[in-house]
């Protein structure tokens, strides 16, 4: 008879999503912790966004964004990142469903689209530096290279992490702890796309509207 008293210790039937029903599974705890990290990363980006918003007019007689930005490249970058986020989501989904074949196909697309984004961005940076519009030219360009470069650095580290994750899937299979890491990676990749929406709007579109 005493066993029945611990069947429903906190009246979990009424309490949902606030710890009701006992400790959350490891997967939820890990992803929640990573979600907090991502929010703190977004707060760090907000500092860079604020710096860019403040400094974007201070060109010190140098080139302005309107002269430097090539919106065709920016459109290609946006499309690459968006489709990469999409295939990453589908890849995570097929990993959840224990379909490694589909996972590898989506993983290859995710990696290639991310690498294409990075290639276009690096060639854009190299073109700007060769035109004498490097980060030391003006406060506007310092803020530009810091903000966009920080996003690019995140994409670079994301790609490295993803190669490592694909290797883990290949070596260990789709075990629960590998799935948890994949979930964290896909959260990271989606968050980078959200930050890119801010970069696209504040830096490129507002910097060059007619």
């Amino acid at each position: 008879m005493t066993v029945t008293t611990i069947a429903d210790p906190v009246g979990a039937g009424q309490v949902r999503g606030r710890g009701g029903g006992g400790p959350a599974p490891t997967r939820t705890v890990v992803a929640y912790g990573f979600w907090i990290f991502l929010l703190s990363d977004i707060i760090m980006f907000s500092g860079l966004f604020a710096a860019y918003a403040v400094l974007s007019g201070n060109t010190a007689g140098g080139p302005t964004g309107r002269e430097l930005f090539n919106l065709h490249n920016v459109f290609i970058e946006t499309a690459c990142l968006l489709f990469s986020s999409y295939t990453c989501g589908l890849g995570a989904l097929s990993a959840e469903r224990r379909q490694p074949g589909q996972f590898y196909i989506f993983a290859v697309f995710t990696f290639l689209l991310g690498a294409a984004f990075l290639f276009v961005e690096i060639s854009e940076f190299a073109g700007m530096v060769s035109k004498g519009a490097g980060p030391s030219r003006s406060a506007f360009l310092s803020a530009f290279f810091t903000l966009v470069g920080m996003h690019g650095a995140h994409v670079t580290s994301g790609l490295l992490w993803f190669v490592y994750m694909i290797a883990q899937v290949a070596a260990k299979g789709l075990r629960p702890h590998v799935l948890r890491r994949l979930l964290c990676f896909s959260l990271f990749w989606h968050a980078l796309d959200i930050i890119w929406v801010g970069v696209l709007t504040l830096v490129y579109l507002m910097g060059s509207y007619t």
Partner: protein
Amino acid sequence: MDGDQRSLDDRTPGVEQQESTASYLSYTAGLMLAVLLTIMSFVVSQTNLLWPPGIPVGLVVLAFAQIGVHLVFFLHMGSGPDNTNNILALAFGLLIVFLVITGSCWIIANLNANMPMPPQH
């Protein structure tokens, strides 16, 4: 019983709770909306479709809509009661982001307007 137990758990960020064939559909719907909003942003910034002084406001509105689409369709941040922790964390993050960005812009614009330029020599 097992199904009941699942529904009492906290939601995991980035995971849809009811796994079904609808998940692929959710990602695809999100992609379509995001593509549409991206193209609208580019069109608005490159044409005079919008009243020109209102273009920045239009771009900001489109960006917020796009971020909302990403959160709902890619990160699965719904409004369900089991999603409370994730939404609260997001709300706090957005508060800090808002304070940092508007606070910086406000203070620096004020300094910019009130500080005399040093004499040129």
